[in-house]
């Protein structure tokens, strides 16, 4: 037993040729946010507070696909979604279609704590945000030049890109090193457990590049992108449609609960057997203070730490696994 925390900044086709500068920026961010989370756990903050806190940081950082830095819809707008879940009570909160709320994850938490509902979306969610007095800004705050470029590329390729991925293969411009091989931004999420085995999970995203306006992905769907009960907390990332159909986050928990698999086994099973290659990554912690980070994509920005001193920051699959 002991505390444990893991966070992710998106899974996908992150190329190993990623320019060093880009890689380092993201690794530094992951390291920094991990430290924030660890400090909070050491200061005895509840896991629910910790996951919210860490995801807020990830949302504020423009290099990840959530909050500021969210990918754009086909109309060039931002539509953000998030969900949060408390393992002990299984209370949860989710939001979709946010356009002005600086921290979607915090609004999701307010839905959980201040309404009799679980999920609010679009105009209704924005209205609730104002009623709650959360910080809102003009939508332009969330839009970054990189994302405008990625949208243009996607439109040109007339394809829906994952919120990262290489430019479409028929696009020969790829050879210039500074092009948008910086496409590897993704969903963000955090899971945490404290010394008493209390668990929480939180996930937030801008979704898919060039998504249809109104498209909802796995991130706000309890059981798909986010889940926590008294055994485990999970946050998933990748191709939303595949994660929904695979009820990924819930499945990790269900395998542990009903088939007695360990945390690591359950996570591995889900990414290897339940969801097609190239579609999913997840981070999870168990009530016993274990942590796992699993993926079937080329890479996943991730970081984790446990009370016994273990910590890891990574992008690509680790060799020893």
């Amino acid at each position, binding site marked *: 037993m002991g505390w444990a925390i893991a966070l992710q900044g998106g899974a996908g086709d992150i190329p190993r040729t990623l320019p060093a500068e880009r890689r380092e920026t993201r690794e530094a961010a992951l390291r920094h946010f991990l430290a924030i989370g660890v400090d909070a756990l050491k200061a005895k903050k509840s896991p629910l507070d910790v996951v919210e806190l860490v995801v807020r940081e990830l949302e504020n950082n423009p290099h990840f696909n959530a909050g500021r830095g969210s990918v754009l819809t086909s109309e060039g707008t931002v539509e953000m979604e998030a969900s949060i879940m408390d393992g002990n009570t299984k209370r949860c909160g989710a939001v979709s279609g946010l356009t002005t709320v600086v921290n979607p994850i915090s609004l999701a938490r307010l839905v959980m704590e201040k309404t009799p509902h679980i999920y609010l979306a679009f105009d209704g969610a924005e209205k609730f945000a104002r009623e709650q007095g959360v910080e809102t800004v003009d939508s332009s705050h969330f839009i970054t030049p990189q994302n405008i470029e990625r949208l243009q590329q996607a439109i040109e390729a007339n394809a829906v890109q994952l919120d990262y991925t290489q430019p479409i293969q028929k696009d020969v411009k790829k050879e210039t090193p500074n092009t948008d091989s910086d496409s590897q931004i993704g969903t963000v999420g955090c899971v945490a457990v404290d010394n008493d085995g209390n668990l929480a999970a939180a996930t937030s995203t801008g979704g898919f590049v060039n998504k249809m306006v109104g498209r909802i992905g796995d991130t706000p*769907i309890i059981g798909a992108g986010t889940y926590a009960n008294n055994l485990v907390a999970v946050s998933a990332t990748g191709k939303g449609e595949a994660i929904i159909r695979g009820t990924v986050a819930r499945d990790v928990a269900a395998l542990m609960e009903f088939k007695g698999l360990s945390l690591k086994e359950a996570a591995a099973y889900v990414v290897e057997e339940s969801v097609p290659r190239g579609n999913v990554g997840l981070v999870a912690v168990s009530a016993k203070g274990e942590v796992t980070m699993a993926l079937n994509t080329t890479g996943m920005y991730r970081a984790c730490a446990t009370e016994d001193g273990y910590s890891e920051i990574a992008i690509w699959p680790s060799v020893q696994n």
Partner: protein
Amino acid sequence: MGGWAIAVHGGAGVDPNLPQQRQEEAKQLLTRCLNLGISALRSNLSAIDVVELVVRELETDPLFNSGRGSALTAKGTAEMEASIMDGHGRRCGAVSGLTTVKNPVSLARLVMDKSPHSYLAFSGAEEFARQQGVEVVDNEYFITEENVGMLKLAKEANAIVFDYRVPAVGLETCGAVAESPIMMNGLPISVYAPETVGCVVVDSQGRCAAATSTGGLMNKMSGRIGDSPMIGAGTYACNICGVSCTGEGEAIIRGTLAREVAAVMEYKGLGLQEAVDFVIKERLDEGKAGLIAVSNKGEVACGFNTTGMFRGSASEDGFMEVGIWD
């Protein structure tokens, strides 16, 4: 083993004092929908086609809470949602925040079949509906006089009316006339209230499908999404079963109820009825809900911890039943 099977529901949690006439109307509608599904199955339509067909019928009839006859938002409008899932391949489609689409379940199906996504909502969904050329009508079409009345009652009590009824604690016998009015969220209710609808089917090829549709909670905040469009919560289908849930949305979501039935069958090896019973008994905590389910072996089952659930079920071996109470 094998053979087709079908179940439909019009919502869980029924007022034990529901007037006999209303009970009859409900049973007739359920019977009609069941027969529609049965004919379709006998004509070899696939499970996914049958669930859509049957839920369309339930949406069109104003009796239950979906499509026409939907519960109303705090603003007095209808805001509908639905989801559909094809067990074969676990493809799915969902919609929320619809205000003009005559048959939400069909739009959910189009999201599944004709869009690169799984879930579309609000203006994006309405836009997609127009692109697809589905039938759209004014929001007034969905609003019934009865629901306008119910909304007023709900507002007066300043409470959300759930789309089912539970008697106050202490009332043990259903069907008995209570001395004090039945309370639901602090509201005395003597009028029949509309319910979420759903259908699950396994066809003669053993393929399962499920679909659920609703207007949601009476007096809900605009923008509130419940369990009905949530894959894994209100609806789920895989190669071993199809499930559709109804009742307290929040309890169904946190319990990932529909997925749970499939998960205990898959991972614990429980049979269909066992799985349904387990989930209702163990996965709801204080929540109130019901569900219908079919298995790829041609079985059909239902379960609820509420006072009654409007339901009907039938299987190829000639079994057929329509009911409300336990």
